[in-house]
């Protein structure tokens, strides 16, 4: 364990040992290789056809998502004809959860405010059966190119790609969307299993910087939501400043925003924190869920489900 701990900055260990349950298991999971997981694209094929085409990769179904599979032998999956054809999207299992919780329906209007590279946009396009409207927005031109590439590969006909500052976008689409996904840019602590890059860049200062942007994005997403609409706020990080504190900031600005409890049968999640560094979060914030890597062999995630009341304020 000492060897594993030495891979992380001391400050990281000090911060998270304070509230992450089974902390040793958490650290062990954070350095273990991530399994190769993929999602079947129902716009183009069926799970049965994919299982036939990718039998060599020995796909095993995920208990909580019939379109998700773990490849026992995932090497080379991204270089298969099936991948080129957009029959599958390689995506960590935890990253499939925000779209599942948002649960967009056919013919709805949906905003994905920070969409690149498009894993959740394309997942939602399939859930909506290629109908309605998804506005997939991202500020970075480079990332938008990758987003368009994935939208094309997955065969999405219901996506408009925009490159607008997410913080100001709501001015032009106030009360417009049935559902909004704010999968916010974050310090990506939860992705350390996939790439050590997040660990190399890790600082508390960066967490605070992201937190400021996230507070703006969640507010913009909420403003863009129709009264009665549903929003998911998610990050792939464990820092409370980027999770519970951001949801709390939204509740301070919009006290009638409702945090909705949710469950994912077969997928273990933990309640959000009640306090951090002396800040007590509102009780309802605990309805948000934390996804820890040791619980389902995934990346770490945070997911909040938020409803704007029918007579909500902007």
């Amino acid at each position, binding site marked *: 364990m000492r060897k594993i701990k030495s891979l992380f900055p001391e400050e990281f260990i000090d911060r998270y040992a304070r509230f992450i349950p089974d902390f040793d298991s958490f650290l062990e999971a954070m350095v273990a290789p991530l399994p190769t997981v993929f999602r079947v694209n129902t*716009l*183009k*094929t069926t799970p049965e056809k994919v299982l036939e*085409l990718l039998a060599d990769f020995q796909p095993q179904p995920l208990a909580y998502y019939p379109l998700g599979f773990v490849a026992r032998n995932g090497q*080379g999956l*991204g*270089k*298969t*004809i099936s*991948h*080129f*054809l*957009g*029959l599958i999207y390689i995506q960590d299992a935890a990253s499939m959860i925000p779209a599942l919780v948002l649960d967009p329906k056919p*013919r709805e*209007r949906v905003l994905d405010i920070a969409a690149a590279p498009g894993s959740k946009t394309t997942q939602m396009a399939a859930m909506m059966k*290629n*109908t*309605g*409207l*998804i*506005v997939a*927005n991202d500020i970075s031109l480079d990332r*938008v190119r990758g987003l*368009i*590439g994935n*939208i*094309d*590969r997955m*065969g*999405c*006909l*219901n*996506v*408009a*790609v*925009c*490159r*607008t500052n997410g913080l100001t*976008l709501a001015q*032009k*689409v106030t009360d*417009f969307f049935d559902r909004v996904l704010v999968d916010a840019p974050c310090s990506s602590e939860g992705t350390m299993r996939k790439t050590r890059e997040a660990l190399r860049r890790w600082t508390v200062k960066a967490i605070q910087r992201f937190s400021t942007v996230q507070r703006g994005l969640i507010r913009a997403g909420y403003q863009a939501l129709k009264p009665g609409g549903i929003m998911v706020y998610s990050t792939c990080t464990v820092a409370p400043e980027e999770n519970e504190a951001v949801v709390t900031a939204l509740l301070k600005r919009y006290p009638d925003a409702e945090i909705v409890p949710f469950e994912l049968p077969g997928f273990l999640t933990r309640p959000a924190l009640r306090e951090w560094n002396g800040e007590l979060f509102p009780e309802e914030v605990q309805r948000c869920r934390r996804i820890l890597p040791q619980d389902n062999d995934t990346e770490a995630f945070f997911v909040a489900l938020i409803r704007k009341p029918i007579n909500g304020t902007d």
Partner: protein
Amino acid sequence: MEQIDFLRLRFGLPANWLEGLELLKEQETIFVGTSDVMRFDNLKPLRRGMRLCRIFPHSVKPTTFAMQILGKKAMKNRIEVNDEQAKCLINGSSIEIDAAVENGFVLIVWQGLVLGVGLYKKPLLKSHIPKVRPVE
């Protein structure tokens, strides 16, 4: 649009192959998407829906990605390929194949799925599939 009729006849697609979708012509490119997407203008989208085809002076070239999703019911000018031929074509190479199709743009089909678009001039099938990443 005459270009759409051309594609339907060329590939033997059913009359309703674009049912529920709208088209948008921008210069020499036709885009296809849901009506909600094609009419959404609030945020000045960079891109609405998907590129369906490009218009040239004497021909219309469908795009690989659009035909993968919209060309499933094509009955004509399809060339079936095996795994090795599919990999060659995705990786940008041409293959020689004797097929009972007209010269011109064809749909390359693998395992019953439209893989993309090729240009056939008997017996050479030249790949027009965009190079995304190599397939092994």
